[in-house]
């Protein structure tokens, strides 16, 4: 099925959402990604990726926690769904499998 594939940025952001667990909203995700990967991504990119992920069913969202900090607006919080978890697992397994398939010789050539 087209779109069930995870893109690289999608994967990173979905993982970040998982890592942040209950506090995964736009700015937090953006900052976390920046911290961990050193990659600068814009807030609108984060939002559009999150939206795509939600459309694919890998995460779900809710509004919660209005604070003064945000001018009275609630946070749009995301959480990884079971489907999201599965796709992350699959992705990890594919990678692990590939890692395992690499002969030792390949990386220690020097």
């Amino acid at each position: 099925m087209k779109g069930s594939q995870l893109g690289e940025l999608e994967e990173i952001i979905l993982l970040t959402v998982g890592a942040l667990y209950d506090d995964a909203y736009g700015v937090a995700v953006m900052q976390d990604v920046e911290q961990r990967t050193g990659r600068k991504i814009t807030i609108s990119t984060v939002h559009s990726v999150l939206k795509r992920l939600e459309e694919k069913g890998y995460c779900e969202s809710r509004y919660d926690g209005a604070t003064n900090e945000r001018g009275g607006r609630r946070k749009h919080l995301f959480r990884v769904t079971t489907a999201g978890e599965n796709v992350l697992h699959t992705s990890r397994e594919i990678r692990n499998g590939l890692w395992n398939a690499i002969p030792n010789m390949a990386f220690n050539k020097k």
Partner: protein
Amino acid sequence: MDKQEPKWIIRWLRRFCDQDLIEGIEGDLFELFELESKEYSTSKARRRYIWRALGFFRAALINKRKSITYQLTAMIGNYLKISIRTALKNRTSSMVNLLGLTLGLTACGFLAQYIYQEWSYDRHFADYDKIYRLTLDMEFGDEMTKLAISPSGFGKAVNDKAPQVETFGMLRRFSNFQFKKGSELVKTSHIYQTEAGLHNILNYHWLSGDPQKALSEPYSIVLTQSLADKLLTNNSNPVGQILTRDNEDQYTITGIIADPPITSHIHPEAFISLSDPNVVNQMDAWRWVTYVKVTESFDTNKFEQTLAEISTDIFGDEGGSGRGKIIIQPEKLTDIHFISDRKFEMEANDGNKIYIQGFSILMILILSMSIINYVNLTTAQTHQRLKEVSVRKTFGAQKKQIISQLFFESGLMIGISVSVALIIIISGQSIFQNYAGIELSIFQMLNWQAILMVVAVLLFILLFSGIYPSLKLSGIKAFQKELKTKTNRFRSVLILFQLSLSCLVLIGTTVVYQQYQFMTSQELGFDQNQIITTKMDDVAIKNYWVIHDKLMQLPEVKAIASAEHSPGEMAPINNFEYNTNDGPKKVVCPHIWADQHYVEALQLNIIAGKDFEDYRGNDGKRIGVLINETFAEESGWTPEEAVGQTLKSGTRWEDKIIGVVQDFHFVSLHHAIEPMVIRHIIGGRDLLIKTASTDYQNLMTEIDRIWQETAGTEQAEFTFLDKHFQQQYEKDQKRAELFAGFSFLIIFISLAGLFGLTTYTVQRRLKEMSIRKVHGASAIQILSLMTKEFGILSLLAAFIALPTAYYVFNSWLENFAYAINLQPILLTLPVLLLMLLILLTAAIRSYKVVQVNPAQILRDE
């Protein structure tokens, strides 16, 4: 914290963005803004905020189905669909509606051009609102003579004495000036002489030369571009070139001005400087037209007071040499074209405020007719739209949305009409311009004010046509079945208004047309047909009798006369004195100079006494004068008594009256017949040839041959006297035709409206009429039922229109020296005709009901 995020971008974003996501986005943007405004300056933080917000306009977040913009466009699409369907459902009335509006707008577009051109006269001069022309009203006995001209020193005197006057200017026209171009002579008729300060009053657009200094030296000339093109062989560097006049005077070109717009009361071809700068101090040359420019702190009342004082100062209390008090009359520069009809105008002012007002009223009428049509047809539709609006309301449409839908429909209609009207105006532009004598191009008229006005008018139409139906329909309840309103009465009032106006306009057109016919068919009192005229130059005048005798030998020539002033021209004014039993009396009246063949050539009737004797000497021997009937009447003589009386003028001249001629219209029928004196002269400038045949081609070659043999120098330009007279009425005729055309348009629009309305009535009452038919109603009965409403309304309209028309047109006719009588038939015939048309329109449409098979209509019930 006073640091504010830029809110506008968010407001904008909200329109496009998925409504479920926007809160999170706003929150994130705000949080980042707060963070960054600690780190950076506020303005940088704001910049970054905007930049970020812009990022959200990417396609992924603009959820089409959930954003307001999408809903709006979808809605408009729906409105469009509904509008088109409604229009197609009522094809006839929609067409009528569109046609009425389009025709109305087109007519207004054309009319506006005409009005604009007339209005714009002399407004291209800077400070036009501060420039006045000073004219003189001069009292002669108990008569007031209104002069356009004043003495040459007048302007300077006023300038020196009146503190309100900033500067002055003066002009004198030369109507026959010839320049040499090689061996050729170039004729000009609009050369103006002026003092050096012309530019301070009338600022023309100078292409070269120094406007301030160009006219300060004697024998300087400033040419318009077109005259320069005509006169100069080498046009590349005109300033400094020398021009030679036919009398060998030499003028140095000191400047070139662009051709002035035609919308001015003067149409100069060139300006020449004063030959003697001293004339501005002299008071004896009465040939000048004086202009002044007033200062900022100008007050009309005070100015008039000052002018009265100055008048006494300059001319004295009694004026002297037989004339009485002189009153200085300031005329606004922009008014000259419209109101000024004084003696010795430099050029004829053919503007007419009454026509401008008439056309403006016509324009407003056409517009209001179109709007009324639209409102009528739309309100008539309301019944059909009831169901649609109810359904919309049931599905949650708000009042606002219903209103916006109906306004959208109006806007659509108007938009279509405007586009079609624009296409017609642009494609018909050249024809109309030719016809109505408009010489400004449409682009010259389109400044921003004009565009603003057009937009304002369109918005006004939109508001007016949209407001009634939308308020009525938006207010209904979702399940209302009938409109409990006074729609019908309201519509009736509008129709009544429309019909009354149509009546009025039709009567008006009839009256205007009759008056025009009357004026052109009036007996002038002399025979203007088959008379060829020309102006003679000095050579021709010297050889006058040779030319006369040679021409008389041609078999086609019946009579030849020479005169100073031929019919159709303004005659100069003189004052005459004569003795009565109560002592000497004075009269101020026009007088012309003519020779002994004048009466014969024009076929004037001598009712008492005799014609001039055949005296060919040019020594000014007094052989008597002729007067007209009115002169005799005003003096209290019968024509027979008048013969033998003595007329005096000034101290030196006196002569006997030898004959009285029947009254004739010397100038035109615009002017009432005044007392007139015909004095004898040999060698007047005007030559009149009365011919026996109408085979002019042959005759003209003969005349040309004789002319070249005897008069030598150049070919004379011949014109026909009747053509010359006809020209006086040409503008009148154009106006009358335009008036008639637009009036018929008004009537057409209102009839079209009735046609559309009847269409609706037919639809609504089809069932009712079918039932009537089933029960045996005849065609006549049904038709009378259908047309009853309009019949009553048109009767009412006639009752309103007739007295109004009588009042309005009676006072209009008072403007004319010779007017028709307002006969009852003139008023009632058009009204009857219109009523017939109205009933016919309604009946034609209603005939559909008669034709239809009732079984087909009623079978669904």
